[in-house]
């Protein structure tokens, strides 16, 4: 079951890329598409940040992950490289759990 989902999503992502380089330009130059598609990653990534920080199953929770996100935010504002942001957040959660 997991494999089917992984392969289907991989195929879908590839087809989107292929569509971009293959379809007639005017199909994708629709102004509505141009103005809306870039907002999809913004909304989805923000929703992922929120749900993966403040929930556990179907419950809203406030735990060490919130502090970890705060540290990640500081790292992002300081323009730290991607891996530093992720490691700083993970280390914060690990350390707070040890306390």
């Amino acid at each position, binding site marked *: 079951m*997991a494999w089917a989902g992984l392969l289907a999503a991989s195929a879908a992502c590839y087809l989107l890329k292929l569509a971009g380089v293959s379809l007639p330009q005017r199909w994708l130059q629709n102004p509505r598409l141009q103005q809306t598609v870039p907002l999809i990653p913004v909304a989805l990534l923000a929703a992922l940040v929120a749900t993966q920080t403040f929930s556990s199953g179907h419950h809203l929770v406030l735990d060490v992950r919130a502090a970890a996100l705060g540290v990640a935010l500081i790292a992002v504002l300081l323009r730290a*490289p991607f891996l530093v942001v992720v490691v700083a957040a993970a280390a914060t959660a690990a350390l707070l759990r040890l306390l």
Partner: protein
Amino acid sequence: MIRDALGIGIASGAYALSFGAIATTAGLSLIQTVSLSVLMFTGASQFALVGVLGAGGSVWAGAATATLLGSRNALYGLRLSGLLNVRGMRRFAAAHFVIDETTAMAIAREDEHEARFAFWATGVAIFTLWNLGTLIGALATHALSNPKVLGLDAAPPAAFLALLAPRLRSREPIAIAVAAGVVALVVLPFVPTGIPLLIVAALVALLGLRPVKK
């Protein structure tokens, strides 16, 4: 230019380490994790898929989110198609490399020949190091007895935040990001895991019905 491509490749490889670790923590096998990096090869979608799985969502909710995140690559492809001018079999190879980084590197060049070179050099460098990084991250995490001790459950939100930050350069995306986060949390207790993301995506699609900005 090769140095730029390598620099981006190395940065991607480092970021792939965290993808390998997060995917493994989410329960994917080594071969599944590596297959995603080879076949999907678009970072935000990969992180989203394993993020949804790790939170207990179904693989299909994760797959749908990954696909929606991949939609922007179609617009990148559109911008690149005139520049790359690829035909036949090469187009199928070029399509696989259409991601944030290769697009940014290619459209930054003034000269068409340089743009093409930047696209392929960045694509090959990232593809190689992205997959190598994924493999190392997954292998290292497999060797751990309990990844949660290392705080790896706090890693995905940080990864999503780092992917989100460069897209928040004006008021509209910031407002949309805040609204999306709030809506996702409000509906979360009432729907299956992963579905809040799809609700948010549907609301964004409704924004597409707005009058077109000049």
